[in-house]
């Protein structure tokens, strides 16, 4: 899933970045509120991890302006402050979740996964499509009882398609959800990943169809 980290502390941002990238997400990072607003206007982020204490405009304002322009991304607020007021304020402004620093890494990961599931309107961790089960909490994929080893990009493609199984996912959307903007991406990187994924799911897994000129679709059965 495509994630934006808005955090002014470079070291912390680096840490969260590696953490989430290792989990197979396409993650971008900005350090300021204004920058976050301009980047999220053009990129389809599923989740924004938003620090409250930013140097230019604070996280609450960023959140308020995101929601004001109709942005439906999930927002996870990060704060170093103690007060209950902050939590209530963040949630009232339309934040989906809230995490206080210093946080447990497992908790951050779990919350990110939970938010990712909720995105498809289906909070269940496991999706079953035909002979395939995809566990979005553990990242485990099985086809007819056989464990499929996936690289993280392949996982990202599968997760994006599985969440919308039976629907066409446009090439652009898939591209934006799978790769961060500073990922070094060749022009056919998406095709390469889709092809590899197809061969790993074969022969008994669901098929990934190419809809020429539009995008891809994961068969429901």
């Amino acid at each position, binding site marked *: 899933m495509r994630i934006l980290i808005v955090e002014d502390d470079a*070291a912390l941002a*680096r*840490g969260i970045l590696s953490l989430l990238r290792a989990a197979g997400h396409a993650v971008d990072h900005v*350090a*300021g509120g204004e920058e976050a607003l301009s980047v999220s206007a053009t990129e389809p982020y599923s989740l924004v991890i938003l620090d409250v*204490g930013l*140097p230019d405009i604070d996280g609450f304002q960023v959140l308020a302006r995101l929601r004001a322009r109709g942005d439906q991304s999930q927002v996870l607020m990060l704060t170093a402050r103690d007060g209950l007021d902050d939590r209530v304020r963040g949630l009232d402004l339309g934040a989906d979740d809230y995490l206080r*620093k210093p946080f447990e890494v497992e908790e*951050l990961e779990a919350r990110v996964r939970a938010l990712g599931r909720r995105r498809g309107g289906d909070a269940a961790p496991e999706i079953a499509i035909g002979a395939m089960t995809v566990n979005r909490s553990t990242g485990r994929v099985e086809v007819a009882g056989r464990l499929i080893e996936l690289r993280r990009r392949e996982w990202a493609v599968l997760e994006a398609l599985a969440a919308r199984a039976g629907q066409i996912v446009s090439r652009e959307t898939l591209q934006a959800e799978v790769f961060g903007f500073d990922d070094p991406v060749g022009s056919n990187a998406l095709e390469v990943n889709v092809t590899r994924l197809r061969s790993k799911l074969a022969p008994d897994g669901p098929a990934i169809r190419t809809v020429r000129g539009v995008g891809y679709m994961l068969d429901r059965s």
Partner: protein
Amino acid sequence: MSGGAGRAISLRFRLLLAMFGPLAALALVLGLLGWVLISDVVRRTNDRVLGGALGAIAETVQVERGEVTLDLPPAAFGMLENSERDNVYYRIAVGNTLLTGYADLPAPDISVLSVDEPRFRFAQFRGQRIRIAEIRRNLPRIDAPVVVQVAETLQNRNSLRDKLMIALLIGECVLVGIVLLLIRPALGWSLRPLSDLRGVIEARDTRAAPDLSPLRTGPLPTELRPLSRSFDRLLARLDDATTGMRRFTADASHQMRTPLSVLKVQVALARRGSGEALHEIEEATDRLERLLTQLLTLARADEAGVLPPDHEIDLKELSQHVISRRIRQAIEADVELLLEAGDGPYRIHGHRTLVFEMLSNLVDNAIRYNRPGGMAQIELSAEAGVVRLAVVDTGPGIPAELREMAMSRFARLQGERGPPGSGLGLAIVKSTAERMGAQLELGDAKPGLRVTVTFTV
């Protein structure tokens, strides 16, 4: 209130001392006056009786056929009888010739006696003091003046005087005693507003969080108003201090959370085999350490008001110390560290550790916010009454409109683009300068920042 070594004298004892001295002196004066007055009254009254007896005797002195005769009236002696059995003596003489009575009763000097006017005097007779009343009469056809004397011993007078004096002394003692006995209840009653005040203060103890608002005492006696006002002022200062402290702790804990988060994240990554993580952990630990050191320095600078400020400091020597502490950091950052000063010495008075930390922070900033190949320079100069210390760097400087904000706590102007810092460096410098009454000024070094601290000598 004072915790002196000696025991403080109780208020009751103070009042006792203050009252007892003057009271005793007053009683003494009263006693002396009483003595004079009583002696006078006793003498006058007894003299009147003695004079009466004298008159009665003198009246009976007559001339019969050219002879002086007299008829001593017993009533005259009766007048002089008293419970003390005073002896009564008389002597009647014509010129120096004794007519009747005690021949050895001291005779008067006739020339000083005026006619028919009784005179009184004390004398010594037969080993006793006596009071003599005497009168001179001129009788017809008798050439020599007739002198009549009546005298009495002084037992009655003395005993009367003593009785009166004793009565007076008893009266005085009772008065002084009552006053001294009254001091305790009077003091208790007078000090009741004070214990009411104490009650109001003690009531504060029972609350969970200390209530530092002004005391609500209701109307107070004039004498206690300054005390209550001072107490309220103390409370207000304490309130300021605790509020500042609370804000500081909140800021500090807020500031610790981010590096702690970094640590947690990187530890998790390290456990999963990330090679980068160790380096990141090291950096985060350094950051925490630096933050802690600076927080402590700031806390020390804040409370330095209570420390003795009177070290004599040579800024040149201090600068050399700071440079030797920071030189490794400067070399690593490829920044040249310089000291620009005359022969000196540049002496100021202040708290040595604080000034050292202040300069050390300034130099740290100058190295940290600089460019490779740049320069950080300490400049010292002295003018009449002031010593100026400036730290100049070749970094990006601080825009004029941000300089005020740069000195506040936890302000980090560059966000993540700048080098890692706690945002406390300039706050430490500012707090220290304020403590020492020195002027702090941020200026332009074109390019770079010039921080000037001006000490008044």
